[in-house]
C-alpha cells in the first residue's frame, strides 16, 4: 500500500501512527498516511528560518522558472510516491477515490494548478503592482527613484488544508517564489496534491528544506497555526468565527457567493440561465466561489423553476464517468445531516424546494459507503429567512425574492457577487459594499476567477509588510 511519510523540511519521517485513506466506493485501503504529533511540528518550526534562508539564496527569476518546470512535472511526470512513482493518471484516479470528486473534476483542478504555476510571474506582478520581485528577496531596493523596503512577516506560511476541494491549493503556489517556506497540513482525505506538488517542486530544483508536510489530526493543525507567524486555515463557519479577528491567520470558510440581478436586467433573466447553472454546478458546488444565492426583486419563481428543471437532470454517476458532475460525500452521515437540515428549513412557509417536483426520487442518494445530494433549488420569499443564507457542499442555491434597495443590507458576507445590472447607482452601491469581497459587474459566473486578482486578501500583503528604510551606503 502507498505510504505517505511526514515531510520534515523535506526529509521523510515514518510515524508509528498512521491513518488509512480508503476508496469511497469500495472501502479498499488506498494509502497509509503517517501522522505527525504536535511536538514534531513545534520542534521543526523552530528552524523555519532555514527554509527562508535556502530560498533567498536563489534569485526570484530562477524560482519562477522552477515553478514553471514544476507545473510541467506536476501535470505530466511520474513523480515519487511510496516505494515507487505516481503517473498523472494515477494521481487523478487516487485523488478521486479518496475525496469523492469525479475524475473529471480532479483533472480540471489539476489544470487549474498548472495554470497558476505557469503564470506566477504575472500573478505576482499583479499582486505586487509591478514591484521588482528582487526587492522582496533583498529586503530593499530602488524603484522609480524611490527606495522601497519590504519585510517578511514570517519565514514560513502555515496551511491547514481541506479535503473537499483541491482547487484551494492554488492559494499557496505563489509562496515559494516569494522566498517564504511552506508548512502544509493536508486534509485527511487529500494527501495527494500537497505531496505531488512538493515532489514537483523538489524535482524542479526548489530546496527540500523549504517545504514541510505534516499530516495529522486537529491538534496538528492547531500546532501549525500556533507555530507559524502567518497561516491560512480552511473550515466551516465556526472556524471562520474563531479566527477572523486574528491578524496572523487568514481564514477561508464558506463563500456565500451570489448572483444579484438588478431591477434593470431581471426581466432578461433567461439570458443568464446558463451562467447561473454553471455558477451553482461547476466543481459539484464545493467551492467557496460557487453560487449559493440568486437574489432578484421579481421573476424569482420563474428563475427557480428554470434552474431546477436544468439541474434536476444531473445524476449521481460513478466517479470515472466523464459526465459525472456530482462529488460524493465520503464522511458517513454528512449528506443525510445536510439533507435533514434543508428539510427543516423547508418547514418555513416562505420556502419551497422547487427541484423536488422535477427530479425522480429523493435529494439524498445513499450508496453502500458514500452518499450523494442531488442539486437542489429552493425558492425563498423572505430575505431574512435562514434559508436565504444557506450554503452547502453540493449544488444548492436559494433563489431569494428581495427588493433591490434591500439587497445589499440583506445578503450578508459575500465572497463573490456577480451583479448583473447597468444601473449606475446600484453599481456604485455595490462597489462600496463592505460585505462583498470579489465583485463581478455584469454577466460573469461566480466561479470565473481572474488569477491576477487577490483572493480574500492579498497574499503578498499577508506575507510582507512595506516599511520605511534608509541606508547610508
Amino acid at each position, binding site marked *: 500500500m502507498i505510504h505517505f511519510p511526514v515531510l520534515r523540511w523535506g526529509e521523510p519521517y515514518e510515524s508509528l501512527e498512521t491513518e488509512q485513506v480508503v476508496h469511497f466506493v469500495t472501502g479498499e485501503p488506498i494509502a497509509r498516511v503517517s501522522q505527525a504529533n504536535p511536538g514534531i511540528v513545534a*520542534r521543526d518550526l523552530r528552524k523555519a528560518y532555514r527554509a527562508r534562508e535556502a530560498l533567498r539564496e536563489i534569485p526570484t527569476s530562477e524560482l519562477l522558472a522552477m515553478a514553471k518546470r514544476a507545473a510541467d512535472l506536476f501535470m505530466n511526470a511520474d513523480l515519487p510516491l511510496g516505494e515507487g512513482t505516481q503517473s498523472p493518471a494515477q494521481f487523478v484516479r487516487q485523488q478521486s477515490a479518496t475525496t469523492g470528486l469525479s475524475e473529471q473534476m480532479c483533472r480540471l483542478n489539476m489544470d487549474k494548478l498548472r495554470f497558476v504555476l505557469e503564470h506566477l510571474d504575472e500573478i505576482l506582478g499583479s499582486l505586487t503592482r509591478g514591484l521588482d520581485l528582487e526587492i522582496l528577496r533583498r529586503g530593499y531596493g530602488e524603484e522609480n527613484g524611490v527606495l522601497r523596503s519590504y519585510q517578511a512577516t514570517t519565514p514560513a506560511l502555515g496551511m491547514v488544508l481541506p479535503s473537499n476541494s483541491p482547487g484551494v491549493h492554488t492559494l499557496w503556489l505563489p509562496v515559494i517564489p516569494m522566498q517564504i517556506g511552506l508548512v502544509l497540513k493536508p486534509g485527511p482525505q487529500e494527501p495527494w496534491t500537497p505531496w505531488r506538488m512538493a515532489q514537483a517542486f523538489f524535482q524542479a530544483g526548489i530546496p527540500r528544506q523549504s517545504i514541510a508536510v505534516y499530516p495529522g489530526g486537529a491538534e496538528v493543525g492547531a500546532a501549525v497555526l*500556533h507555530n507559524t507567524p502567518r497561516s491560512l486555515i480552511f473550515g466551516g463557519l465556526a472556524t471562520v468565527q*474563531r479566527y477572523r479577528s486574528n491578524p496572523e491567520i487568514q481564514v477561508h470558510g464558506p463563500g456565500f457567493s451570489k448572483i444579484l440581478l438588478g431591477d434593470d436586467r431581471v426581466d432578461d433573466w433567461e439570458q443568464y440561465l446558463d451562467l447561473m447553472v454553471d455558477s451553482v454546478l461547476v466543481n459539484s458546488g464545493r467551492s467557496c466561489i460557487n453560487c449559493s444565492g440568486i437574489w432578484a426583486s421579481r421573476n424569482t419563481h420563474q428563475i427557480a423553476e428554470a434552474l431546477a428543471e436544468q439541474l434536476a437532470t444531473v445524476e449521481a454517476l460513478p466517479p470515472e464517468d466523464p459526465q459525472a458532475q456530482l462529488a460524493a460525500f465520503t464522511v458517513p452521515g454528512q449528506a443525510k445531516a445536510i439533507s435533514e437540515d434543508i428539510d427543516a428549513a423547508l418547514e418555513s412557509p416562505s420556502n419551497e424546494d422547487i427541484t423536488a417536483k422535477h427530479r425522480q426520487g429523493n435529494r439524498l442518494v445513499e450508496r453502500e459507503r458514500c452518499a450523494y445530494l442531488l442539486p437542489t433549488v429552493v425558492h425563498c420569499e423572505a430575505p431574512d429567512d435562514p434559508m436565504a443564507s444557506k450554503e452547502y457542499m453540493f449544488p444548492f442555491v436559494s433563489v431569494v425574492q428581495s427588493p433591490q434597495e434591500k439587497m445589499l443590507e440583506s445578503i450578508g458576507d459575500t465572497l463573490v457577487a456577480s451583479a448583473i445590472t447597468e444601473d449606475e447607482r446600484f453599481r456604485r452601491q455595490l462597489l462600496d459594499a463592505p460585505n462583498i469581497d470579489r465583485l463581478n459587474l455584469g454577466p460573469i459566473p461566480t466561479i470565473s476567477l481572474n488569477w491576477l486578482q487577490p483572493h480574500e486578501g492579498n497574499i503578498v500583503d499577508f506575507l510582507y509588510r512595506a516599511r520605511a528604510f534608509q541606508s547610508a551606503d
Partner: protein
Amino acid sequence: MKVRSRSPSFGIVPAKTTQEMTSTPTTANESLQAAVGQARAALDAHVREIVGWHFDPDTGCPFWLQWAQRQSWDPRQEIQGLDDLVRFDHFQDDWLRGGPVRRWVPKAYADRPIYVFETGGTTGVPKSRINIEDFRIDYEEFSKTLPEQHFPHGANWLMLGPSGPRRLRLAVEHLAQHRGGISFCVDLDPRWVIQLIKRGWMEHLAAYQEHIIDQAITILEAGHDIRCMFTTPKLLEALALRLQDKGTSLRKAGISGIFSGGTEFTPQWNRFAHEELLDGAFMAPTYGNTLMGLAASAPSGPHNGYTIAYYAPQPRAVLEVVDPDNPDRPVAYGQTGRVMLTTLTREFFVPRFLERDEGEREPPTAGYPWDGVSGVRPFSRFAKNTTVGVY
C-alpha cells in the same frame, strides 16, 4: 480510519487463558504460570479481606453499608474472589459527586485526619475521593519500580503538573520525601486550562503555559540540585523545547529521571520524546487517576515499537480490558477493549468501574504476573466529548 500499532477493532473473540497463551513448555513459562497462579490466589484473598472490611458494620463506610442493606445478599458471604465482584455491577463515578463526603470514610478510620482529592469539576460538582494513607502507600509502592540510577535517593524533585485539590501535588511530594529528597512545585489549575480551551482563548492558553514553563525554568536554574521530576506529556514537551531554544536540554539541566502520565502517551509520542526531547534522561510512563493507585509500565523502546504496557499495583488495584458491549467478558490478549478498574484498599472500594479509556489487553510478565493494558487512549465512543491532554 485510525490505525495504531494494534487492531483498532474491539476484540470480541473469547479471551484465551494464560495457559493457552504461554503453552510452550519452557521453564520460564512454567515459572510465569506459577507466578500468575500465586498472584491470582493472593488477589482473591485480598478481595475477600477488603470486601469483609468494607461490609463489616464495625469498619465499613456508610455508603457501602447502606448499599448492602438494600441488597438481598451478603457480600461478605458471597464474594470469594475477583470473579465474584460481578455481583456489584459497575461502580458509578457520579456517586462521588456531592456529599456528605463522610459517607465514604470507613468507620474504622473515623478519627483519622482525612484528605479529600478531587477530579473533574471544570463545571459542576467535582468527584471527591477521601484519602488517609492510600496516596502515600500507592506512591511508595510505585517508588519501588523507579530505577535508582535515574531517580537517585536524596535527589530533589520538581512537581510540574496539576496541583490544587488533586492528589498529585501531595503524592509527588511524598514520593520525593520517601526517596530522601525535597519536592518543588509549580501551581497549575487544569480547570482553568479547560475553560480557556472551551472559550477558544488560545492566546491565553499559550500565555498560561508559558507562565508555567517560565516558573519551571526558574526553579531548575536556581541551583536546587533538582534531578527528578513529575510532569505531563504536554508540559514535558513545552519544557524540553524551551530548554532546546536556550541551547540546553532536560539532561543538561540536570534531570536524570522523569515520571509522567496521561493518555497522550501514544507509541509515537513516546518515540518522539525519546528521540528528540529527553536527551538521554529516563522517562517512566504511568497510568493512574484519583480512583486508583499508579500503574507502572514495563520498559518500552524500539524493541517493542515504543508501546507502553501498564500494570496495575495488584492487589490494591486491578485493571481489566473488557468488551465494551459486554463488560463481563475480557477481550483476548492483544485485542482492544475498554479499561475496567477495581480499587481494593481499606480506605476505598471501587468495584468494576468502567474507565473512559480503551486499550489493548497485555499478557502477564515476570515482573507483573497479571494482565496489563497498552495503548491507553480515550474511549473511542466517548472521545469526541472528551478534552484530554490539556496541561
